[in-house]
């Protein structure tokens, strides 16, 4: 049979598209009458669906280039004001300012926002529109092996008009683990596809059969066939990225997490703790060597790879549930995860394109190499290309941050939630909070001044004090609270002195409240050695509690609020719930407040 590659399919497709709008499923079931001789109606239906998905998704796909137009990779827009996801190994090669092309043929300027070097994710922001076409974020946990998927992007930098190249295939595997390849980037719980992923696809979207964004394509198993697709491409799951999205929007260099304990699979298939840091929170919550890990973050654990997989999708500092088994008894604990890397490791730029040069014969090196397009080395120091003038103000460099400008924006947004409580800044004197300790049924009076905080319980039968200056020892006062007086001092400092009064203050992304609650925004502060994380409701913007750590590796004093009432013209929580080391210390019901007005 002769096949006319140019004319025939075009005609049949057009005919199909005309009829598709009116054709119902039942007419299709009659079988092949509309396009007999051309193709099976099922095939045409599938093709039409495919075309529709591509048309729906393609406008959100970004072709990313370095400032000089060289190098490049792919990305995908996720908000109408221009935030787009890509790979860290794309932006690290392209520099802080990029040029981004969309399939309308237009080129836009873009700036780096936040980076996740371990997870190989970066967030950038395109300028110039408030109505960018966006991809719909899907749920990658709902994918099944065998499902159709589409990879879009700019492989081999083919698209001179910026319209993405589309490859499609099936989901070949789920929850795959691809360990570090020469660098510290690690693909955990990732999606394996047989759609072609080639150099230049890096950072581009993986869409589900329905056209939802389910992953960011970033790696492939490349072996001796050269740096081209060899049937196994890997995408970072969108569900992992969702955990980091607020961090990234805050201009942070985000880190992944570790439990602070080593695990191994025993002969009987169980997963046990083989080593644990006694400075880790897991240890303080009671986890010990030989305990069997049953589940983590709500997912059952059956292998080390699986544990690494689940651990790898969470940011440093998140508190998550862990169930362990000891002598047949199950115990659930909540553990705040430690950072995978030291601060210094995260601040330093990783070596440029570390896995770029294949080492002949070194298979492990080759395996899982990143399909980034060849890029010019990033100019260092004074050789940096000048940013476009009108956008230069959108980049604020600060050690520890990818772009502090975006952190300032998030700080402003979160701090607006405090404004509703009223003006605490005008008063100059000490706070006096008259409260009632609920369980103990005792009166409690807190006095919070600039350099000294005190608590008097039961009309003077018990008294506690905490100095709050540079020389003072930041103690656990009252004992077994984790430092309640120090903690309340931080709250007063934020309300009365303002954000500038802290030695450090930054937006720290979001986290699930107390390990299993809704996501809350986190504002982190430092004053002397005390670190505080103020927690804000994402919906209402209201401050709902805070945790203060006196020092590193000690359990914080956790204060949660319930109910808001007006005290002397200012709003304040009616009930303060104080917890420390997984135990509730007490509840204080506020009866009256004096804010130190002159």
């Amino acid at each position, binding site marked *: 049979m002769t096949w006319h590659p140019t004319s025939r399919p075009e005609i049949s497709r057009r005919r199909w598209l005309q009829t598709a709008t009116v054709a119902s499923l039942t007419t299709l079931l009659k079988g092949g009458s509309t396009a007999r001789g051309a193709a099976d109606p099922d095939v045409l239906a599938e093709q039409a669906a495919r075309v529709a998905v591509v048309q729906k998704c393609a406008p959100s796909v970004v072709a990313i280039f370095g400032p000089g137009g060289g190098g490049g990779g792919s990305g995908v827009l996720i908000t109408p004001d221009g935030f787009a996801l890509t790979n860290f190994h794309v932006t690290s090669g392209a520099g802080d300012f990029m040029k981004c092309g969309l399939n309308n043929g237009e080129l836009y300027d873009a700036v780096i926002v936040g980076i996740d070097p371990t997870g190989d994710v970066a967030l950038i922001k395109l300028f110039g529109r408030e109505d960018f076409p966006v991809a719909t974020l899907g749920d990658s946990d709902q994918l*099944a*092996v065998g499902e159709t998927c589409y990879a879009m992007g700019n492989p081999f930098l083919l698209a001179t008009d910026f319209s993405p190249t589309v490859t499609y295939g*099936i989901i070949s595997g789920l*929850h795959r683990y691809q360990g570090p390849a020469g660098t510290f980037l690690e693909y955990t719980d990732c999606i*394996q596809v047989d759609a072609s992923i080639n150099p230049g696809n890096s950072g581009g979207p993986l869409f589900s059969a329905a056209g939802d964004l389910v992953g960011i394509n970033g790696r492939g*198993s490349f072996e001796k066939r050269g740096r081209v697709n060899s049937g*196994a491409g890997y995408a970072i799951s969108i569900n992992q990225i969702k955990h980091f999205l607020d961090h990234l929007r805050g201009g942070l260099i985000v880190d992944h997490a570790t439990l602070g304990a080593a695990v191994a699979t025993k002969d009987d298939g169980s997963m046990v703790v083989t080593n644990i840091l006694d400075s880790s929170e897991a240890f303080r919550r009671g986890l010990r060597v030989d305990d069997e890990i049953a589940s983590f973050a709500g997912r059952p654990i059956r292998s080390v*790879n699986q544990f690494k997989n689940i651990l790898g999708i969470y940011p440093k500092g998140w508190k998550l549930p862990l169930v362990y088994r000891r002598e047949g008894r199950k115990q659930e604990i909540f553990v705040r995860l430690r950072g995978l890397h030291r601060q210094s490791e995260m601040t330093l730029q990783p070596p440029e394109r570390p896995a770029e040069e294949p080492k002949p014969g070194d*298979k492990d090196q080759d395996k899982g190499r990143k399909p980034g397009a060849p890029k010019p080395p990033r100019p260092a120091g004074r050789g940096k290309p000048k940013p476009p003038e009108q956008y230069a103000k959108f980049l604020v460099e600060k050690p520890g941050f990818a772009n502090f400008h975006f952190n300032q924006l998030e700080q402003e947004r979160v701090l607006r939630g405090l404004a509703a409580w009223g003006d605490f800044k005008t008063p100059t004197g000490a706070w006096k909070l008259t409260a009632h300790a609920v369980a103990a049924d005792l009166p409690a009076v807190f006095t919070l001044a600039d350099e000294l905080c005190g608590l008097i319980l039961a009309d003077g039968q018990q008294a506690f004090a905490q100095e709050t200056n540079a020389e003072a020892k930041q103690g656990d006062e009252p004992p077994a609270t984790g430092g309640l007086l120090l903690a309340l001092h931080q709250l007063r400092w934020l309300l009365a002195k303002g954000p500038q009064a802290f030695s450090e203050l930054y937006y720290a992304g979001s986290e699930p409240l107390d390990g299993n609650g809704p996501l809350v925004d986190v504002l982190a502060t430092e004053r002397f050695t005390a670190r505080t994380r103020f927690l804000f409701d994402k919906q209402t913007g209201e401050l709902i509690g805070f945790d203060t750590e006196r020092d590193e590796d000690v359990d914080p004093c956790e204060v949660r609020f319930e109910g808001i009432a007006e005290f002397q013209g200012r709003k304040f929580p009616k009930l303060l719930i104080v917890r420390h080391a997984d135990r509730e210390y007490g509840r204080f019901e506020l009866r009256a407040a004096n804010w130190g007005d002159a």
Partner: protein
Amino acid sequence: MPSDRLWDACVRAAIWGLSLVLMCLVAVAPAQQSNAPEEVTPSPAEAPAQSRQQRVIEQVSRRVVKIFGAGRLKNLYAYSSGFLVSPQGHLVTIWSHVLDEQEVTVVLHDGRRFAGRIVGAEPQLDLAVLKIDAEDLPCFELDEAVTPPVGARVLSFSNMFKVATGDEPVSVLHGVISARTRLTARRGVFDSAYNGPVLVVDAITNNPGSGGGVLTTRDGQLAGMVGKELRNAQSNTWMNYAIPIAELKTAIQDIISGTFTPKSNPLEAPLSSPRFLPIDFGLVLVPDVIQRTPAFIDAVLPDSRAADVQLKANDLVLFVNDQLIQSVRMLREELARLEPGDTLKLVVRRENILIPVELTVPETARKPRKRGTEPEASSDDP
């Protein structure tokens, strides 16, 4: 296989909108389904078709195993794939260096690990049959294997790149049969041992660790065993192919029943043999005694191709087809890589003069030889 048919029946029931309850009824009453039709009517709707394919993939994946064995040396990976062919734990895989151990580790779909031992092998078919001590395993029925026509849509299941190690399912690729042909391929400098019919696929199915995986139809019917990584002997490109089960079935069944007499003794037969040796050109090289023995010509046979171009004893071979030659071993490798009819360009040094010469490669490659008759590496140049 009854359980297969049962699944098919269940899936069909779902497609046609029968209730879950009915599915359960069907599941406990297999006899009622004994006259179920062989062919599944293609489903018109997208969603059931997808879930049906997912069901097929899940069912096939359960019958594919990960094999871990010898290797780990440079360029030798220590893993491959296999598939179960009996409920008692017989499994089929490729005959490869991974099996060069007393026992290999076989990991099932559910993460259970077993010691696998070789029951039998037929190197000419690239075939080995292993046995693990287990029972009631999900397996393929060899008698139900099919050979799909060119153009048929297929799935390939294997543990390529060792992506799965425990209870994770193996990787699945999709593609079509692009050709049914005879294999003319080679592995490194050697011809492949198997040169029978193969199913060529348009997906990149033959990767490290893929060998011993399965090729199935979209309905999950067994069609072939994914072969080892080989290059096409003509084009030098990597091949994606599977050996049809029809070619392997008798040998597998005979090995399992204990009635198998191998055409070649797996312990004696080499995997394959070099295509061209220096002697084919009339060249006798100096004995290969150190790591990098310089590629000096020890003698030139009279009336040989080398003699025709006036090569002489004590000439040092510096280049073969523009490739710098650093040792006798490297020269042998380069010669072995040649194709019949190629032009062989040599540059030799003779008393500080560089002399380029051109030879024609013989039209026929040498026949694979049994290990017993194959000359030792340093003794074929007398």
